[in-house]
């Protein structure tokens, strides 16, 4: 029944999901954020390959707070964007309800987990790189 609600109220009420455009907005917001982050990532990766790519070089590179912070921002935006993207892929192609639910949960947890793990690794290398 839609009869008793105004157009604005319906839009704000966010429909049956309760989230309405939140997925769409966050997908675009993370996408736009990832443009400069990806450019910086490629530039940094290419610049690092100019020398010998040892573990010490990587750890020292993360000792620079700028590198550590921007890489953490990149991981955050990347896994967020990735989890939103894979969610749509699962919703579109998996038609068995239970499988869909399980895959959605696994994908969300995996993206969150690997994002946190990567961020932890960066902080850990940053502290090592400072010493």
């Amino acid at each position, binding site marked *: 029944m839609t009869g008793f609600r105004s157009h604005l109220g319906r839009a704000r009420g966010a429909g049956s999901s309760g989230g309405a455009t939140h997925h769409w907005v966050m997908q675009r917001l993370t996408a736009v954020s990832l443009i400069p982050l990806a450019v910086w990532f490629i530039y940094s990766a290419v610049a690092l390959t100019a020398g010998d790519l040892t573990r010490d070089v990587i750890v020292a590179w993360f000792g620079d707070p700028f590198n550590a912070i921007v890489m953490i921002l990149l991981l955050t935006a990347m896994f967020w964007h990735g989890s939103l993207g894979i969610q749509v892929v699962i919703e579109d192609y998996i038609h068995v309800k239970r499988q869909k639910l399980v895959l959605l949960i696994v994908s969300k947890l995996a993206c969150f987990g690997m994002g946190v*793990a*990567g961020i932890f690794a960066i902080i850990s290398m940053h502290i090592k790189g400072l010493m």
Partner: protein
Amino acid sequence: MTGQHSAGTPVRRERPLSPHLTIYKPQITSVLSITHRATGVFLLIGAFVFSAWLLAMAAGTPICDCMTDFFKGIIGKGFLFLWSAALYYHLFNGIRHLFWDMGKGFELKEAQYSGFLVVTLAIVFTVFTWVMVTGGSW
């Protein structure tokens, strides 16, 4: 399609189906659309590997050397090449999507042209990047 009588016994109903995907001739717009998805999934796998690589680097265990050796090898480099190509494609086609979100470039000719542009840019940038990489000692 199966439905149910009010009594609960299933009955078969013949319902019209829309033509399936295999009916359509591949077009640049549709092929690039599915490629955007495919590269997105492939890049998410890359993101997982990247996080694992960061952990290995932080830990400094033998896994670290193992991963370094793998990515310096031909198969590892092949994956890095594919990931870089996928990243450029997804990046440029993503920008194309953002223009669509602003309501720009929807005409068929425009969509075909921007698609061609995205593929060309992705190829050029991938090649240029790897020329820069192999120009170093790595």
